[in-house]
């Protein structure tokens, strides 16, 4: 059995006349085919008041074409033991079709049909909306999801990234049934599309399969959107959202991070690993969980988008220890911003990212994610080959500067979801506290 490519030259790339890009990678180990279609337009394109439209459109294209009804599409896919999924995230929409290599011609014919000839039947869209509304209502019972929505809305306020990609109850209820068709017409354009095939055939052969699938698509002109950057408020605030039935609070500390094309991306990755991204190698985990036992889990994450995205600390703690957990988080933030990282921490973080590189590219799904991310943000595939070397070159000063610039305890936007009455007095010392009822913050039916 032959291994997986790790180098830029293993990714085949062909630009079609209509502007679409086909990428191909040979994965000889198992006779599988995974096809990823990426349209470089995501939920940030949702018109105001129609949040969730990009995501509905992604699902919508699988619900009917000129030649096939939704059941026919489903059956055609599932009869092959294949899986079809579609969704919209930030900056792009994705359609994924995974099946067996032997079924390649049929799988690609289905993919081309739904991408190029969707009809968005009204009844299907009506049902899809109903499903999304019920699902969203059920998500109101998941405290983690609700806390994520609230903090994202605060940190990204004033940008097209401030709403949940799946929409809100209000926006979904108001969405016109013809909206997905219009969104598709304006945004699903060949010059915005990338088709990646990973399968057990030589990459040239895969490229030709891809070209055949998208070749006849006709392009039209497109416009680029102006994306304002998020601005972190000047002072620390605590929003305490009351859920008296919760025995454990959800805690979010929100900051703004960097954009994906920022040259400091790798130092940021390393800084975040040491801060809260590196599990038990991170300061947040060691302090808040391992030495204090305030929580089962804590981490920091950052989303690097076309613009700077959220840089968040997420955790949870029983009601009684929530204020102490938050105090400890703020202390870790202040120390890290002021003192930077140690040589040992830096060395270990670099070793992790360098050493784990082959493990991060073991499966087709991992490879697809990495390659599509580079293509989405216009970064060269050389980044694949050069990653370990570049990680090794990250300097302590770069990491320290990032910590000082981005880990701003003084401007942290804090959200706590839990028993407000019990926690409010102890939280007062940590910033301006605003208490709101769940219904004031989250759109739920009475």
């Amino acid at each position, binding site marked *: 059995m032959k291994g997986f490519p790790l180098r830029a030259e293993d990714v085949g790339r062909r630009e079609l006349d209509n502007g679409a890009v086909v990428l191909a990678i040979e994965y000889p180990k198992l006779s599988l085919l995974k096809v990823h279609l990426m349209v470089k337009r995501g939920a940030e394109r949702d018109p105001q008041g129609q949040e969730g439209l990009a995501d509905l459109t992604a699902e919508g294209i699988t619900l009917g074409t000129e030649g096939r009804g939704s*059941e026919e599409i489903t059956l055609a896919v599932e009869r092959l*033991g294949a899986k079809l999924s579609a969704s919209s995230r930030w900056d792009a929409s994705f359609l994924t079709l995974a099946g067996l290599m032997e079924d390649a011609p049929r799988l690609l014919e289905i993919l081309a049909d739904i991408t190029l000839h969707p009809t968005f039947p009204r009844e299907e869209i009506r049902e899809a909306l109903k499903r999304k509304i019920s*699902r969203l209502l059920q998500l109101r019972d998941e405290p983690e999801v609700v806390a994520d929505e609230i903090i994202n809305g605060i940190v990204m306020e004033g940008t097209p990234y401030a709403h949940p990609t799946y929409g809100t109850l209000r926006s979904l209820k108001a969405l016109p049934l013809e909206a997905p068709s219009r969104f598709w017409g304006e945004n699903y354009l060949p010059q915005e599309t990338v088709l990646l095939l990973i399968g057990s055939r030589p990459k040239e052969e895969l490229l030709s399969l891809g070209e055949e699938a998208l070749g006849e698509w006709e392009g039209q002109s497109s416009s680029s959107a102006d994306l304002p950057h998020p601005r972190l408020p000047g002072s620390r605030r605590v929003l305490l959202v009351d859920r008296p039935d919760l025995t454990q609070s959800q805690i979010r500390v929100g900051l703004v991070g960097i954009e994906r094309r920022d040259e400091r991306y790798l130092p940021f990755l390393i800084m975040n690993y040491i801060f809260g991204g590196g599990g038990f190698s991170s300061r947040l985990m060691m302090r808040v969980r391992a030495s204090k036992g305030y929580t089962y889990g804590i981490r920091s994450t950052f989303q690097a988008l076309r613009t700077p995205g959220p840089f968040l600390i997420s955790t949870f703690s*029983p009601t009684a220890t929530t204020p102490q957990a938050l105090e400890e988080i703020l202390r870790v933030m202040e120390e890290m911003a002021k003192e930077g990282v140690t040589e040992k921490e830096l060395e270990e973080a670099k070793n992790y990212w360098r050493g*784990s590189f*082959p493990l991060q590219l073991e499966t087709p799904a991992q490879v697809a994610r990495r390659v599509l991310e580079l293509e989405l943000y216009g970064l060269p595939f050389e980044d694949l080959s050069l990653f370990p070397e570049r990680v090794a070159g990250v300097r302590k000063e770069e990491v320290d500067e990032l910590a000082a610039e981005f880990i701003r305890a003084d401007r942290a936007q804090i959200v706590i979801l839990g028993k407000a009455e019990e926690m409010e007095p102890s939280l007062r010392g940590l910033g301006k506290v605003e208490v709101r009822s769940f219904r004031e913050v989250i759109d739920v039916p009475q």
Partner: protein
Amino acid sequence: MLQEILGFSRHHLENGLKVLILQDHTLPILSYQVHFAVGSRHERPGITGISHLFEHMMFRGSKRLGPEEFSRIIQANGGNLNAFTTLDHTTYFENLPADKLELAVSLEAERLSNLLLTEENLETEREVVRSERKMRVVNSPFGLLIEKLYALAYERHPYRWPIIGWDQDIRRLTISDCKEYYRRGYAPNNAVVVVVGDVREEEVLKLISKYYGHLPSQPPPEDTPLEEPPQRGEKRAVFKKVAQLEAFFAGFHVPGITHEDVYPLLALAHILSEGKSSRFWRRFVKGGEAVEVKVKVDPLPFWPKDPALLIVYGIASPGTDLEGLEERVWEEIERVKDQGVTEEEATKAKKGLRSSFISGLETAFFRGLLGGIYEIKTGGFERAHGILEGFDGITPEEIRRVARTYLREENRTVVVLRPVSPEENEVLGPVE
């Protein structure tokens, strides 16, 4: 095909430690796993949750290592790691660059020989686990419901308590409980070490003998759980909590992993609720009557060792009457029992099961799990070689037969979620 892809070699140390090795030189990586034949089935009321709490203690340090230093060292060497506790076993693993074999062997052997079990560590980890329980169970939409379902469906067998344990038991576990558990459960003769990846067999065996050879074997923990008698009538319960939507969770007793009916049951679950061409999706979810109606069974190799529960659940959309939804779900099941499934449905299920299983084989980690878990639960990894044949042998007749055998009303336990307001919730008392 699986004889090759899962062609482990098996070795024994004198102290009873079993070693499975699978060489794969595709990528310069390895997966190192230690599976112990201890899980929540080996617990008893009063110490429920000890298997899982103990799993946490394994990261809290040893003679040579400080708390959580194990994790830090693995990551600093480019690895990832974790552990999980199930009904039947506890598994520790690290995936690493291939040149870190000795590191993995020495660290795992260190915590097996010299674990530090202190009161202080236990107190910290106790609080961490209580927070974990709140996250996974108490504050999750359906966690308490599922606990209730197992507690009601099983009357004797240890599967009736949750893997994470009851909160009261977690609060009163002692350091001497942990020491006793460590001595018996974590003996070499109760473990299987699995190594998959870019390694050489002689090298692996040399290192494992060097680091594990000195460990003495122990009388293994007792493993004769009470058998669950056949259920002879439906059991029902209501659970009230703050929620947006009504739901029901139903469990049917089905056999354990080594039984041949596992394959048609997996296919039945697939036909009823996997994907958008499934019967439940088309009848209940597509038109918006329910948010979700699903059949939940554990895929291979995670299907339990002893008779398990096949769970059917439905979450009603706003405006849908839950009782009606539940009735219509049973109607759909009756339809399978009366009329069977089509040849096409069976073929689709077989192909679907086959292709998700094959996708799993992409990682060295999953191949290791297959070997280790089959070895622990079924007595030999060789049984995993038959999985694809098991899928191939599924027929519409077999699917209908298992539906008739197991999805009977007498064999069913149902727990219903009734949403209440926060005010009513207060009156009902605390949850833990």
